[in-house]
């Protein structure tokens, strides 16, 4: 099946206050394309948590959103420290975020669980010292 639309974003890891800008833009773009509101919400929240995670843990990264006829894929790629124990990181409440991030309303250990909650499938490929690649898919049907 041919790829219909692709959006690419570079996520700035130096400034937490700007984190989430790409997700807000994706939400706008999906609205323009006439995607159903419930799908838009799932995609934008899943990506938002991923974007925040990249800023908190990995010093930023690259995000691509691909829109196919039957699904939307969110690809997140960073060169951060990697996830030591993915099973542990997927547990609600487990967090390695520093206190200053908690004071900003994040770092409650809900990032990866929320990404799983709002996507129809998620695959995480992480290597310590090399980085993390995440693919989230939201079905359009």
């Amino acid at each position, binding site marked *: 099946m041919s790829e219909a639309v692709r959006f690419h974003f570079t996520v700035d890891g130096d400034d*937490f*206050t*700007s*984190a*989430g*800008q790409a*997700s*807000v833009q994706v*939400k706008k773009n999906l609205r323009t394309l006439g995607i159903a*509101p419930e799908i838009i*919400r799932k995609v*934008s*929240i899943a990506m*938002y*948590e991923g974007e*925040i995670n990249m800023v908190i843990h990995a010093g930023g990264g690259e995000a691509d959103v691909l829109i196919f006829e039957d699904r939307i894929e969110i690809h997140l790629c960073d060169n951060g420290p990697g996830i030591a124990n993915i099973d542990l990181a997927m547990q*609600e409440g487990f967090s390695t975020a520093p206190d200053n991030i908690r004071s*900003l*309303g*994040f*770092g*409650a*250990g*809900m*990032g990866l*669980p*929320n990404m799983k*909650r709002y996507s129809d499938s998620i695959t995480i490929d992480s290597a310590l010292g090399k980085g993390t690649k995440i693919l989230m898919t939201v079905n359009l049907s």
Partner: protein
Amino acid sequence: MKISQIQELLEAEVICGGNELDKEVSSACGSDMMSDVLAYVKDQAVLLTGLVNPQVVRTAEMMDMVCIVFVRSKAPTEEMITLAEEHGMVLLKTSKRMYEACGKLYAAGLGAKGVTV
């Protein structure tokens, strides 16, 4: 309940979105933890929080919320106000604390429907 009633009940100051006060809202939630808002909130129109940073507005935007009430007299920054205006969101500020502000709205009939755990 109209946003204007929320403003009256909480004796709140309108920071932006003054032309949207007639908008009807049917539920609200209170939290300083944006991750929890993203995890547990569904179809809620109003966020009460004491947290002040741009992610509060972005989180509310992600959840399609139409109004944020800042409790404990917390004042949003200019950047936050600009972001809220871009999304047509109402920002209110009240001197009441979170517990009292939520209690007043709940007692007046603004429920918490749509919270999923």
